[in-house]
């Protein structure tokens, strides 16, 4: 990095907020999926104006810009692939700016940690519904950029359903705003989930929900994974959409029990964790219907958590499941695919076969109600055979999901990891259509390049310049 570049960044946001020493950059060179290369600089702005200044400087000097939240991403989205570039960390932009309890919404900065938002609005008896399992550390900005899901998105919908308005810094450093109630195109809808390639989120209005009056959590154990997944299909098929419907297999259950003593039955091959948030008046009937379906599919046991402490214990196991797998192997790879819910049994079967053929241990912990699978492949990265086995198992799972009418990512995103796999679900025309949007928002490919689109996707047509002179909200 040139001294001039560093100086200009330092002038814009203060030298203490610009990092260029390799030892300082190292922690920003990977996310929860991969290790990338060292960026040229990491900058930590305090507000929208500084973000805008940073983008202007980077663009002038031809450096790409990569937005970064907590770095919990699972597709290499927040890392520099080829080395270089300016990583913008939102660690200092972590505030709840405004709470409008009457209209159940809040304006937040992108660096606000997901769970902190719910904690800060709990006093108004509200909460923020999308709850990725990483919610203790992942940020609202990262969640918006990946359209994050979570256990409770089954009934509440994913992040996109909860974003009302955005403030964005574009590839040239200009600020613009979008609002779902604005006339014209729903730009909010396409910005959410665009993984930092269309603009940088500098603040957002998000929707809040009222805390439920009554919540119950149930745990059903099954003798095999097929019957558990058939029970899931049957629950959805019966028109019952609980607030959350999660599944864990025996590998996960055992790891979780050892780590947390959550009270999961370790003799079961699979458990379903089911939550319904609503009203006491209807809970008994609701429970009876679920229990009946579970029984019909051969459930071994049924447990109900009624107190907050019991519920938290059951959820602690689920939310800590990935971490608990650390007991099984030093490393793990999380695959993320979605299939139509009625083919869950087939998809899980395919996962099992793929892992067995490659001689790998696989643990399944996932958003079953949405058909969103997360096979965790345990391995040791020092063993080259195992690394190869993980790659081919991951690929076989992708293949199976697509064959079953599913897709290559349900919630973790495409990032760098799956950019080449995009051609397996979309035609060249489909991808070129997406690229038209990119042409408008980021014609020079300044923002998070090397992500989402397969290498070499370029449009033949010359893109029209974005007209300037819009008024911004900052």
């Amino acid at each position, binding site marked *: 990095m040139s001294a001039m570049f560093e100086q200009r960044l330092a002038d814009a946001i203060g030298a203490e907020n610009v990092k260029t020493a390799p030892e300082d950059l190292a922690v920003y060179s990977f996310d929860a999926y991969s290790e990338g290369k060292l960026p040229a600089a990491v900058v930590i702005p305090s507000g929208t104006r500084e973000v805008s200044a940073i983008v202007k400087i980077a663009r002038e000097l031809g450096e790409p810009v990569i937005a970064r939240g907590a770095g919990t991403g699972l597709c290499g989205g927040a890392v520099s692939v080829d080395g270089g570039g300016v990583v913008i960390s939102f660690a200092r932009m972590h505030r709840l700016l405004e709470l409008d309890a*009457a*209209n159940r919404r809040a304006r937040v900065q992108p660096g606000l940690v997901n769970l902190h938002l719910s904690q800060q609005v709990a006093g108004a008896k509200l909460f923020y519904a999308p709850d990725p399992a990483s919610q203790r550390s992942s940020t609202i900005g990262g969640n918006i950029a990946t359209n994050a899901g979570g256990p409770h998105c089954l009934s509440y*919908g994913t992040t*996109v359903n909860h974003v009302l308005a955005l403030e964005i810094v574009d590839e040239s450093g200009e600020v*613009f*705003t*979008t609002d779902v*109630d*604005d*006339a*014209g*195109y*729903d*730009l909010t*809808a*396409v910005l959410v*989930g665009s993984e930092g390639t269309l603009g940088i989120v500098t603040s957002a209005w998000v929707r809040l929900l009222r805390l439920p009056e009554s919540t119950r959590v149930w745990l059903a154990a099954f003798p095999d994974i097929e019957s558990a997944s058939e029970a899931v299909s049957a629950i*959805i*098929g019966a*028109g019952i*959409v609980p607030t959350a419907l999660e599944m864990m297999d025996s590998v996960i259950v055992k790891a979780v029990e050892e780590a947390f003593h959550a009270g999961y039955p370790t003799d079961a091959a699979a458990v379903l964790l089911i939550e319904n948030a*609503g009203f006491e*008046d*209807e809970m008994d*009937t609701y429970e009876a219907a679920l229990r009946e379906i579970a029984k019909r599919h051969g459930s071994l046991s049924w447990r109900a958590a009624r107190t907050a402490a019991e519920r938290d214990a059951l959820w602690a196991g689920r939310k800590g499941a990935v971490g608990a797998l650390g007991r099984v192997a030093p490393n793990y790879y999380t695959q993320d695919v*979605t299939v*139509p*819910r*009625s083919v869950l049994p087939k998809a899980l079967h395919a996962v099992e076969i793929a892992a067995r053929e490659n001689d790998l241990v696989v643990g399944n912990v996932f958003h079953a109600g949405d*058909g969103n699978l997360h096979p965790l492949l345990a391995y040791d990265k020092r063993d080259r055979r195992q690394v190869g086995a993980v790659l081919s198992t991951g690929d076989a799972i992708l293949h199976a999901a697509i064959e079953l*009418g*599913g*897709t*290559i*990512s*349900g*919630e*973790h*995103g*495409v990032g760098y990891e*799956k950019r080449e796999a*995009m051609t397996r679900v*979309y*035609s060249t025309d*489909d*991808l*070129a*259509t*997406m690229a*038209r*949007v*990119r042409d*408008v928002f980021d014609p020079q490919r300044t923002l998070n390049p090397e992500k*989402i689109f397969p290498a070499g996707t370029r449009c033949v047509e010359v*893109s*029209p310049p*974005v*007209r300037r002179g*819009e008024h*911004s909200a900052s």
Partner: protein
Amino acid sequence: MSADELCSLLRQCSDDGTKVTVVGGNTLRGMGFPPSGDELGLETSALKRIVSYSPADLTVGVQAGCTLKSLASRLKREGQFVPFDAPKTGEATVGGTLAAGWLGPRRHRYGRPRDLIIGSVIALADGTLAHAGGMVVKNVAGYDMSRLYVGSFGTLGVLVQANLKTLPLAQTARAFLAPLPEGTRSRAMAQVRALAVEPSAALWIDGFEKEIPGEPGAEGRLFILLESSDALLERATRDLRSAIGRAGVPETRIIDARARDMLDGIIDAYVSTVADRSMTYRIACLPDRSEVCVLGARDLVRRFALDADAIADIMNGDVIVRASRLETRDLPLKLQVLDDALHQAEPRARIIAGDHPSRAAFNVWGNDPPAIARMRALKSRFDPHSTLNPGRFIGGI
């Protein structure tokens, strides 16, 4: 017409400069700038199949020309629905409703149509047939193009197919109608918003006496739709009655038979016109502002010696205001001045009904949003020759 034929027609039009206007059920023809008349009218009515419906997956793939009613009746057989909540379901098409970005009164509970779309097939102006999303309920493989098409008013492409999430119908539905005596409206609206068991729809109706049943009180009437499990219905009913009772509303009529149809009837009223002597606006505002917004808009309308009918969506904040007058000579002029005055107060007011010629001169979409330049750029990247619905959308798009 098949999707392929549609694509080659569009390609041809793009090449030879023919402009195209896309027509669904024509039920929302009062929205947008009127077509100039020189366009080729392209009807989607031949594309009306339900392509795939998997009740156990709660998903349906449906062609754009399918009417809302035929989709709804197929889904109802499986105890499911898609909450479009759009008017005139017998004629309105899935494609037209999505393209118009129609928003109904149950969306706080069930989501906006754009929240329910999971995949799409669209014919672009240059004849490209583009697919997006798929048939799964969670999908982050690339940009969410399908949601971008919702509300794009047919200016980015012609929707051929939409894949949607379906929802299970609640066990029961119960409607409530209550006349609002003097001095009760504000409190009643606040009480309804605070209910623990949220109504699926809650509307304050002022006027619309020909279109919507129920005796009005001095401050109009309240319509509420509860949808719940059988087990919850009694409690929800009790809570609702005592809440509005506390607001000073003495009587509520309960309607159990065809409660949902009643909501459909009210939604029809949103776009009902008074001969061709009316203009109806929709104003998006925050829920806690909706009452003030209605009162302000109503006063304005009356200041021009026009009749005002209004609906406030208590849960979502939308306001519907209709200005009309049967026996006045200078109606077009009055409406024009009203249009200006209304946008001074409510920049987001947009016209949703009132199909008369002078509309072309009005601010039909409301003031330009902050990101209008990007919207124009998007349009020219998708439809560089402005073939599709030219000039009918906001900001000259």
